[in-house]
């Protein structure tokens, strides 16, 4: 997965639970079926209340009506991102929409681990509260190795916590591929 990402940012608040990331009604799509898998992208972040969807103004759809992919390359979130249900469909849905990075103040543990283990996206942690300093639609540049998010629209730079060893797992495409690459599993 690319370690430098450039594109538009989608901003959400605190305690974004996995029911908001992908509502339960869409869990009956089968992620193993390529045609049905597309629908996770279509419905990613669709459980957000309208006024919380794309801060500060709200009312922004993460994936446009009827579309399968999002125009947003990075999600910026507040505390406790991905709390609630353990559904791995949550990071999968974000990734299916074409978005491969989240920058949050903190994560619920299961969602954090799912993001890494499945190799879906970079779950980066901010060192500061940045959801009040960045606007949905701003152009941003994310550098995973440098642990840095730059808002190109405002010129402001935010430092992030280094991902550490988790980066190797994501880069390998998930924990199984990582284990194989590290010689811990037979081919």
């Amino acid at each position, binding site marked *: 997965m690319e370690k430098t990402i450039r594109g538009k940012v989608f901003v959400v*608040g*605190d*305690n974004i*639970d996995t*029911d*908001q990331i992908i*509502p*339960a*009604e869409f*869990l*009956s*799509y*089968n*992620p*193993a079926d390529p045609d049905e898998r597309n629908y996770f992208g279509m419905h990613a972040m669709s*459980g957000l*209340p309208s*006024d*919380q969807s794309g801060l500060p103004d709200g009312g922004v759809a993460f994936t446009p009506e009827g579309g399968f992919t999002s125009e947003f390359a990075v999600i910026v979130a507040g*505390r*406790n991102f991905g*709390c*609630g*249900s*353990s*559904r*791995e*469909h949550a990071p999968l849905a974000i990734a299916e929409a074409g978005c491969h990075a989240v920058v949050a103040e*903190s*994560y*619920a*543990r*299961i969602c954090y*681990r*799912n993001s890494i*283990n*499945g190799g879906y996206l970079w779950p980066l942690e901010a060192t500061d509260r940045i959801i009040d300093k960045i606007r949905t639609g701003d152009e941003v540049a994310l550098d995973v190795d440098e642990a840095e998010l730059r808002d190109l629209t405002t010129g402001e730079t935010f430092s992030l916590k280094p991902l550490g*060893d*988790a980066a*190797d*797992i994501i880069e390998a495409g*998930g*924990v*199984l591929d*990582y284990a194989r690459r*590290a010689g*811990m599993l037979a081919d």
Partner: protein
Amino acid sequence: MSTGTLYDKVWDLHTVRTLPTGQTQLFVGLHLIHEVTSPQAFGMLRERDLQVAFPDRTYATADHIIPTAELARPFGDRQAETMMQALETNTQSHDITFFDPDSGAQGIVHVVGPEQGLTQPGMTIVCGDSHTSTHGAFGAIGFGIGTSQIRDVLATQCIAMNKQQVRRIEVTGALGEGVYAKDIILKIIAQLGVEGGIGYVYEYGGPAIEALEMDGRMSICNMSIEGGARAGYVNPDATTFDYLKGRKYAPSGAAWDRALDYWRSIRSDADATYDDVVTIDGSAIEPMVTWGITPGQGLGISERVPAPDTLPPSKQAVARQALDHMDLEPGQSMQGVPIDVAFLGSCTNARISDLREAARLLQQTEGTVADGVRALVVPGSQGVKQQAEDEGLDAIFRRAGFEWRGAGCSMCLGMNEDQLQGRELCASSSNRNFIGRQGSKDGRTVLMSPAMVVAAAIHGTITDVRTLL
């Protein structure tokens, strides 16, 4: 770091080795699976031509999508039928025991595991479901995992994990009348916050916890995840052992005695050290209700809905959003708020003692469901349902105007036909009041104990159950 706790002991006993990432490779004693999060994991096994390493440590049931009104196959919902068929095929081809609806043992995975005696002290237990923390009630370390981890466990019976810190939560005193295990955990989450437990495992102890039967301990451990803690547990004791004795998958004969020795040995030592200790006065806990959109937004029934600007800055935005969504005003009491639906069910509170207490209240008050309120009881398992019917509880519920349903997750998350409509407000014994959780994006959820659900159903408004006693 903690030392000498049950968590430390069980962790060490299940450690295979330290991985290059610094994580621990942990052996998994029991793997529970259900229809929603497992199909893709089996798909990934097939892609890589891998087998299930320990089918005899893997058990399946169907709960999330299962209809609770009409079980005839094929299910009316085509996608539910597809998921059910996938689970049937996967369990058959990998020789995994499946508690299907014909077995008489089907139900919510966190009700079924304990009921069958599969959940035992000192085990590591995983399931692709966040409420796997429930099993900690037996002194097991149970935690929810994602689908790629289900794949890992199916293929290797191991999981890569980072060790967490341990916070001891001591609940002192005795609970007052009308106050239950659910109120304890709602109080804990209100006090410590929904993210307060991130990076921690919770050890619940103290007189108010030790006095609880297993069903109550399960309600508490169940909602550990709502406080951010991936696992929570209670040290096993005579109550635990009495519950397990004679259950289908519990050890018997000489194996029982060996098991008892092991179960006693993994209790936290008297001189165990913790990373944090929190003490809560159990005798001061009132019946709790949530007023917002996270399980941490809870208050005692005699308290008032807070004004957002009186809260810590980090809680103000979500409080404003909550008041707006719930249509509540600061300073308002939750008592008297009208309800549309009363839901008695879920892996938190659909066990036999929950149903007994609810039925007892109905009988004692001779109450019936208020006009305009839809009330349903969804037993946690077919076993619970059968037991309740043997005791005549179903007749009490039906007479009072409750619908008596089959076992499943039902309206806790609205993946089957049991969903809120529009702006409906639900008095719910479940675990999550997230926006949209019960199937309607505009629907509203107020979490409470089963007894409080009954009180609300009878009055048609949120009511302090103690006024009925």
